[in-house]
């Protein structure tokens, strides 16, 4: 029976490996996502440093062409699917229930399943390096991915790995959509939700609607490679462009799935450290929704040079230009939030504020690509590499780091060291600009993408060397972050409930929160509820005697994940493994359905 706060169990009293394997607690799952995602972020970073080492000088000899193709393909796959998306999932897991005043997500076991599917899919995809890793780019254009162009199973690893990761994201996106729509605390209306929650809701819808076309493409690729169909093989009547359409119908919403959560994060950080509510909340929400809708209408801007007819090309060009408008609205609203504010430039705020100009640079090169005749010159050059890394590294990653510094005290009870944080930030800020700005020049000078080396007389050596130096600077900055984490975790927890005097509900409970999140579910009277209560002298309600029941742990999620992995391993080894996976899945599903949840 729950009574006073002191008798309620604190987070972390359950210890041991089994408690982590069977956890259904959104905070623990969030921690697992964060640690795994950061590990793969390092893996992707090492892949990048190898690439940059090879390209630093003409006629580089660090990596041969075969390995280079695998490295740049896996660098993108690792960063997008194994690092950025799961890092966002870590924040969704940790903060969404807290921000809406819920005690967990709608489906805690399915939440755990999403993590295990991610981990196993990530291991499956990465294990391909023991054989041949995917080597046809992360976008895997047909027909190069077909069996006649490579004897290895690299593209089977690709398809099966992405299918597993897709199921993980499907389950998570459905879970978070239901959670946000259906589990808000009393008084938490949709238009009082923090912007981070809105962005999560929007990308949840994008994910479960955009993943099916990719799934179909991956299945058709598997069929081409293993069952002699000709979906994408011209000789049999197939169409390689069909693959591009299927991939980019997913791929374009995917890049908004990557950027909207960091935009949501800085929409929380900037108001907190400006000591001012977010400027233009409604515009921020509707701009996010507009970006979500419009993201479906631009995919063929990745295909401007494939021979599309002029009318669709013009439509996609116009839509691509238009999607800059809601994005611009967000930029101005962040600036408007800071204007007249009482600004504190701690590390979290530095990362958040730097997002604004850095993402804008990426957005400017992006809108340049929106013109088909200009894009014809950009396509497959380093100009596009510059654009995508500005929006994803200088944009999304910097936004994620703002979230890390902002929410680290809530997750661990300790504030990250500000001195080390400043080194982390400035090295990363200098690093991203020195690495990626010169790539605009290289692109304009004609350097193509995906080449493992270049000749001496191309005059590309200077900026390539500059970019390589920048990449190691960026890596050093990230090393400072890792040091900061280790140094900080050795300190005693002393952050308190709300070290930033922030306005949203996750700060209305202890740091870290107890297993049941809130002793009392907060009553929400306005947007920025903690500032409203502070300014109107409303004290938090005392705990009641009401019993709180949390869902019990379960081993069925990891077991179902193992069954799914067995299904995926069959085509790579022996179909007997797939056949054995079926009863594992059935046993897990039935056990899951029948076990008590109270």
């Amino acid at each position, binding site marked *: 029976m729950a009574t006073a706060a002191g008798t309620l169990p604190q987070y972390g009293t359950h210890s041991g490996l089994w408690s982590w394997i069977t956890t259904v607690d959104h905070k623990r799952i969030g921690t697992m996502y964060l640690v795994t995602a950061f590990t793969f972020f390092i893996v992707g970073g090492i892949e990048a440093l190898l690439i940059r080492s090879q390209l630093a000088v003409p006629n580089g000899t660090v990596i041969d062409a075969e390995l280079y193709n695998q490295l740049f393909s896996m660098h993108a796959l690792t960063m997008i699917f194994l690092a950025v998306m799961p890092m966002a999932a870590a924040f969704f897991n940790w903060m969404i229930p807290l921000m809406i005043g819920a005690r967990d997500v709608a489906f805690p076991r399915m939440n755990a399943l999403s993590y295990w599917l991610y981990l196993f899919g990530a291991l499956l995809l990465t294990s391909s390096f023991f054989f041949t890793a995917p080597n046809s780019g992360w976008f895997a254009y047909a027909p190069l991915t077909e069996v006649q162009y490579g004897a290895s199973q690299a593209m089977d690893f690709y398809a099966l790995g992405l299918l597993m990761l897709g199921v993980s994201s499907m389950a998570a996106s459905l879970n978070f959509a239901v959670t946000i729509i*259906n*589990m808000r605390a009393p008084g938490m209306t949709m238009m009082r939700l923090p912007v981070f929650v809105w962005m999560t809701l929007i990308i949840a819808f994008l994910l479960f609607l955009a993943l*099916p076309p990719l799934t179909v493409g991956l299945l058709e690729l598997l*069929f081409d490679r293993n069952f002699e169909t*000709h979906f994408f093989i011209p000789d049999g*009547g197939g169409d390689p462009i069909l693959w591009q359409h299927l991939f980019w119908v997913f791929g374009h919403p995917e890049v908004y799935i990557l950027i909207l959560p960091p935009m949501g994060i800085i929409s929380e950080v900037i108001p907190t450290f400006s000591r001012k509510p977010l400027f233009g909340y409604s515009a921020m929400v509707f701009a996010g929704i507009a970006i979500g809708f419009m993201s479906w209408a631009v995919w063929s801007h990745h295909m401007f040079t494939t021979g599309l007819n002029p009318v669709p090309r013009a439509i996609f060009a116009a839509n691509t230009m238009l999607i800059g408008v809601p994005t611009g609205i967000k930029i101005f609203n962040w600036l408007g939030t800071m204007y007249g504010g009482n600004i504190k430039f701690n590390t979290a705020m530095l990362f958040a504020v730097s997002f604004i100009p850095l993402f804008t640079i990426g957005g400017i090169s992006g809108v340049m690509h929106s013109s088909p005749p200009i894009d014809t010159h950009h396509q497959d050059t380093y100009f596009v590499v510059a654009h995508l890394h500005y929006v994803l590294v200088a944009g999304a990653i910097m936004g994620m780091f703002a979230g890390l510094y902002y929410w680290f005290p809530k997750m661990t009870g300790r504030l990250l060291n500000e001195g080390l944080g400043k080194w982390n930030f400035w090295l990363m800020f200098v690093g991203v600009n020195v690495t990626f700005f010169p790539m605009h020049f290289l692109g304009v000078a004609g350097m193509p993408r995906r080449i493992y080396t270049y000749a001496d007389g191309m005059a590309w050596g200077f900026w390539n060397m500059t970019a390589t130096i920048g990449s190691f600077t960026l890596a050093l900055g990230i090393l400072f972050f890792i040091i900061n984490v280790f140094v900080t975790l050795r300190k005693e927890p002393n952050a308190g409930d709300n070290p930033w005097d922030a306005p949203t509900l996750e700060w209305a409970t202890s740091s870290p929160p107890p297993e049941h999140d809130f002793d009392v579910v907060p009553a929400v009277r306005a947007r920025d509820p903690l500032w409203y209560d502070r300014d109107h002298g409303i004290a938090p309600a005392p705990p009641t005697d009401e019993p709180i029941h949390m869902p019990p742990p379960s081993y069925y999620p990891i077991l179902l994940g193992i069954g799914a992995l067995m299904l995926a391993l069959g085509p790579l080894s022996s179909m007997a493994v797939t056949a054995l996976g079926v009863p594992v899945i059935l046993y897990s599903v039935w056990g899951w359905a029948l076990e008590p949840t109270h």
Partner: protein
Amino acid sequence: MAAEAHAAPVHHPTSTGTDNRKLLMWLFLASECLFFGTLISAFLVFKARMAVPPFPHKREITESLYSTLPEKIQEQCATQLANGLRECHGILDIPITSTSTFVLLGSSLAMVLAVYGAQHGRPGMMKAWILITALLGLTFLGFQVYEFRTFGSEGLNLATNQFGASFFVLTGFHGTHVGVGVVYLLSLLAASFRRNGLGPEAGFHVETAGLYWHFVDIVWIVIFTVIYLIPS
């Protein structure tokens, strides 16, 4: 321990008034619309470009193309026309597939009756109609297996031509969804024989399964229309 066991399941009120699990099923079905929509789009892309038999419907080919075909497929194009072209008969059997469509539609009717039984506290009626729904679903799958084997023996398989590839992938994944639905229904049926049956939420569980089952049926109506009824 703060957690306390409850005899009856406690339902926390939801923000919309709709149960979380039902909302989950609806959003999942929305994603399935995209899944089948993409498969149907791929079918339509290739339908517009059919060049090599077997064809779904009756179509003419040139004598020179006829001479390049394997013998088994040449049998389908035996008819010689006055203008020198060969006429290939369509491989689809509309009467048989109309029957299987009717069977699947009937299974949706059975599902409605099963939901009625579950929601009105009539477990006997519920169990009987769940069983009938599952059996009708299995009958539909039986027709699919018959059709796949017949086409195979007539020379149409995944590798033969684009119609074969897109047809088998589309109808195959649909059939898989029907199969999953049958397992879902038989699992509910088995669980309903426990001492407590499906519990106080029997109506809810059967209704949610009904959403899935009707969706799979509606997808078949679209597939049947696009593949079988609309001529090439």
